[in-house]
């Protein structure tokens, strides 16, 4: 792997995911695909998760990552992608809602 002067390789979720796959780990990729109102991370942001729940990157300001990681481990198990939605209007808002008042949709898929 050739190091790039232009990407922060130690923190870049997509570079990390590639490394994890090469190490033989099972990896899920979570992507913010839609946002409404004030959302902490823009559309296209990634969180990568391995089978043991290690994660890098972000899809929010830390508000919903825990829930996404749990779902991602399921996705790694089943291989079936799923769409998650978080927001204050969500019934689970008291648990994993976004305090900023926005709403986001996160697509979670298995790599490979």
């Amino acid at each position: 792997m050739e190091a790039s002067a232009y990407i922060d390789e130690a923190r870049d979720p997509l570079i990390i995911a590639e490394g994890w796959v090469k190490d033989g780990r099972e990896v899920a990729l979570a992507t913010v695909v839609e946002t409404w109102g004030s959302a902490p991370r823009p559309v296209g942001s990634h969180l990568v998760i391995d089978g043991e729940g290690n994660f890098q990157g972000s899809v929010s300001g830390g508000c919903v990552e825990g829930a996404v990681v749990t779902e991602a481990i399921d996705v790694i198990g089943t291989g079936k992608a799923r769409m998650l939605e978080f927001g204050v209007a969500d019934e689970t808002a008291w648990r994993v809602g976004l305090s900023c008042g926005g709403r986001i949709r996160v697509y979670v898929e298995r790599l490979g």
Partner: protein
Amino acid sequence: MDTKILEKLNAERRARRAAIVVTDMGDGGARLIRQGDAVEGELGEAVAKALRTGKSGLVEIDGRTLFLNAHLPNPRLVVIGAVHISQALGPMAKIAGYPVEIIDPRTAFATPDRFPEIVLHAEWPEDVLKRQPLDAYTALAAVTHDPKVDDMPLKAALDAGCFYVGALGSRKTHAKRVERLLAMGVTAEQIESIHSPIGIDIGAASPAEIAVAVLAEVVRAYRSRGLEAKGAAA
């Protein structure tokens, strides 16, 4: 997403080339589209727009919901000349989200004391640019007004399609520079794209004010890039 796609995407990102990952939200199928790849129809238009604006998002095409994730290289600014203006421009541009590198072979100017926490190359521009070529996501501002130092990187920036090329100097200085660049094989169209006098017109007088004017011009060029050549990227 297929691991092969991820590897190819990361290769493009490391090389500072734009790419789009298109994922079908229905079946999860993904494909990688590189800048310059020919894409037909509605998807082609959506891809061209994403490459131009850098905005990712969902699109509906032929009854399918597709997610286009635009991966564009971060913009950066290369300044030729470790002069007083650059001392202000370096930190300002960095704060604005445009990482800066300053190149000046004159070692009396290019000292870490004068440029704390800025990437500084006390070398000839041709040597630095050989290692780190310019590209479409790079802005170049030449502020030494010394032909020996400025001319080569100006031509390199025009040839690389830098989104911004600016050159410091009075109209008289610039007229002479135009003659030299034409003699180097630069086209009249390329000459037209050089921002000179440098910086937007805010009546800037001090070196720091000129830096503000230059940075504003760089931001404007970045945010409006490709608008005149709509669809050319597809």
